[in-house]
């Protein structure tokens, strides 16, 4: 056997030594940032295929970038969704509100009003514009960075803040980490902290809708880093096997906490290209271009609703802030990245487009931003009247044991009695705030 190693020989003696490639981002703290290697293509150049086209004809869409808004602030090409100015202003308003909300809640966390917060700064279009392209009763299975969907769907801000504060107004009874919202009324699935689990669940929901001959579709959002999870593979596979009416939105914001997208495979290919291996329709979209986001989601929704199949959309964007209140991005990436990001800021781009159309101006923008900030401030105060995290017990103690099962089995009943006994021992006079908020 000629290829059998000589047991006496030194390992690898006659062949080049193997080396392990560990991905490394281009820029670290302090580095000058140059994004000229990022090919963003030209707005308006991508053709718009028919929604019912075969996935194998869409190869170029997995590597290119669907763009509509140009540097001239005008809409270009066949992907222009041709939205009327009122709709564009609504979109801008939801995005501005999302940003104002993020600012206030981030500050609230820093002030000790809650334990945790996550901003979506720079990614507002990927939730707000995409959500606007869906029907309001299409079911969404978001990750933790799609607060824009709830704002777009009209979920009351006070409910969001109550949840963030885990206060007595929190419909989730203080059980979930802040921002892990749930609203069945708004067809918004309960958010999980475990990554990518929502993606195959969305496919299951879409399968159920198809089983029942319903007309509603499902959409899910997942970060590019989380596509590494096996659940995402299951989602892609089940979606294509059952031709499920579902949209898999991958938010490629370049960073998963401190791990750049290369650790999810971005050094070798795009996330949209994952679609090709499954036979899914795949689109790669400028995630900072609200018109492109809307158009792509609308295309995929039309496709799903026509029983023409699922779509995987990669929204190419940039996480302008840290992962959450718990990390400091200046410790792992260059601060210049945000300024140098070649696709700009989605709020500014939509604002400038409306101004270019003669449908908006700086003065109205300033007024809108101010009103958004004031509205959030006012609602925050209202929510604070329901208590903030750490100020007393906001929910009756027994609620800790409820909803584990539909009914309380004996072992939980016994444990609830023990817990109540412990509180009575610690606070013999009882807690004045218990169940009534701070």
């Amino acid at each position, binding site marked *: 056997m000629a290829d059998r190693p000589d047991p006496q020989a030194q390992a690898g003696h006659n062949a080049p030594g193997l080396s392990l490639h560990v991905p490394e981002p281009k820029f670290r703290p302090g580095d000058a940032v140059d994004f000229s290697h990022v090919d963003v293509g030209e707005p308006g150049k991508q053709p718009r295929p028919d929604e019912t086209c075969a996935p194998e004809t869409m190869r170029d869409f997995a590597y290119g970038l669907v763009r509509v808004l140009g540097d001239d602030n005008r809409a270009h090409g066949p992907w222009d969704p041709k939205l009327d100015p009122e709709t564009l202003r609504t979109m801008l308003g939801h995005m501005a509100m999302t940003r104002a909300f993020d600012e206030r809640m981030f500050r609230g966390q820093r002030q000790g009003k809650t334990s945790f917060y996550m901003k979506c700064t720079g990614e507002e279009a990927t939730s707000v514009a995409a959500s606007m392209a869906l029907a309001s009763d299409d079911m969404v299975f978001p990750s933790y960075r799609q607060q824009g969907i709830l704002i777009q769907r009209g979920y009351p801000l006070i409910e969001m803040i109550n949840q963030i504060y885990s206060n007595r107004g929190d419909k989730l009874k203080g059980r979930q980490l802040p921002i892990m919202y749930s609203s069945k009324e708004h067809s918004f699935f309960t958010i999980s902290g475990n990554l990518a689990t929502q993606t195959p669940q969305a496919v299951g929901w879409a399968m159920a809708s198809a089983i029942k001959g319903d007309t509603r579709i499902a959409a899910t959002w997942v970060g590019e880093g989380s596509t590494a999870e096996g659940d995402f593979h299951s989602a892609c596979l089940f979606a294509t096997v059952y031709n499920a009416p579902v949209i898999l939105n991958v938010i490629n914001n370049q960073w998963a906490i401190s791990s750049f997208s290369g650790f999810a495979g971005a050094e070798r290919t795009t996330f949209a290209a994952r679609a090709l291996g499954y036979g899914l329709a795949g689109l790669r979209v400028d995630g900072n271009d609200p018109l492109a986001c809307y158009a792509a989601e609308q295309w995929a929704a039309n496709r799903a609703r026509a029983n023409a199949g699922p779509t995987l959309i990669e929204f190419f964007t940039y996480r302008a802030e840290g992962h959450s209140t718990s990390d400091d991005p200046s410790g792992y990436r260059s601060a210049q990245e945000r300024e140098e990001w070649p696709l700009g800021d989605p709020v500014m781009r939509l604002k400038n487009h409306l101004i270019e159309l003669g449908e908006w101006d700086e003065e109205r923008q300033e007024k809108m931003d101010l009103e958004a900030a004031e509205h959030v401030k006012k609602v925050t105060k209202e929510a604070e009247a329901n208590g903030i995290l750490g100020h007393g017990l906001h929910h009756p103690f027994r609620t800790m044991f409820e909803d584990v099962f539909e009914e309380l*089995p004996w072992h939980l009943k016994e444990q609830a009695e023990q817990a109540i006994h412990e509180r009575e021992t610690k606070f013999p006079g009882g807690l004045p705030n218990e169940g009534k908020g701070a």
Partner: protein
Amino acid sequence: MSETETMSAPDQTPDQAPNQAEAKPERRLNMIEAINDALDISMQRDENVVVMGEDVGYFGGVFRCTAGLQEKHGKNRVFDTPISECGIIAAAVGMGAYGLRPVPEIQFADYIYPGLDQLISEAARLRYRSAAEYIAPMTVRSPFGGGIFGGQTHSQSPEAIFAHVSGLKTVIPATPYDAKGLLISAIEDNDPVIFFEPKRIYNGPFSGYYDKPVQPWKKFDQSVVPEGHYTIPLGKARLATEGEQVTILAYGTMVHVVEAVCKEKGIEADVLDLRTIVPLDIEAIEASVKKTGRCLIVHEATRTAGFGAELSALVTERCFYHLEAPVERVTGFDTPYPHSLEWAYFPGPIRIGEALDKILKD
């Protein structure tokens, strides 16, 4: 009355066929047929019940539990899935959120692990984390246990893993009659249920003597399975045999093995078939151990941190002053399930017999 008994209706005493069956001729089914019947009836009664899993559709399942269901109820409600336990459980979570009542099959319990995150972090937690906005009314069926020369990947008994997870119910039938009534209860339950089917006793009860021929279920009264709908409440044990000398806690295959050992040794034991381990029928356990003063726990699963440890702790905590001997456990060994040495691993008549001798010594 245990707390959980009120959860399922109609209330029935164990081993008592419902009145509706009295007029009909006696029908004897093996456990596979009983499970198939339960699925069929559940699908007839509730159009939201869907059955999915590897090979469950056209083929009818590797153990035939879903035979004929696709033909009868259509491909939209009974369908094959990719070989992806994660995807199967996740899709069932999504279907449950939609309003369906999915009954996914995991072909062998040994294959369930890729689906654990979806079971533990998702299905079991939806109700709690959404304050009951979303629930996961799914029943995960899966053949489990050894004794069929399945080697380490077709023989495991992982029930303790699921019993440890808050928010999951775990059910293990030991007879065809129970399999049907418990499965219908599980499917109608609004919480996620793990339904482990002891595959060694699919076709007939097992005495523990692998070298003796299997007696088919039809020779035993527990195979009398009435037609139509009936339920057995989850959380209610069955007193398989009654005796004063010792209480034996078991479930699944081991119920029959301990019954055979007691018969052989002339021991009169309360053999309590737990039927569900979460919720557990603690009242039945306490009542029996306080009566006999001795307790043996038998399961096929590995010993360390097995469900027997929980049972032993509960009995000791609650019945200590009634005990006349230490609580004993008979279990599988803490090894992977071996293939050729299966019967050396299996907690058979010798291991059980010696434990009984020890517990009854004084």
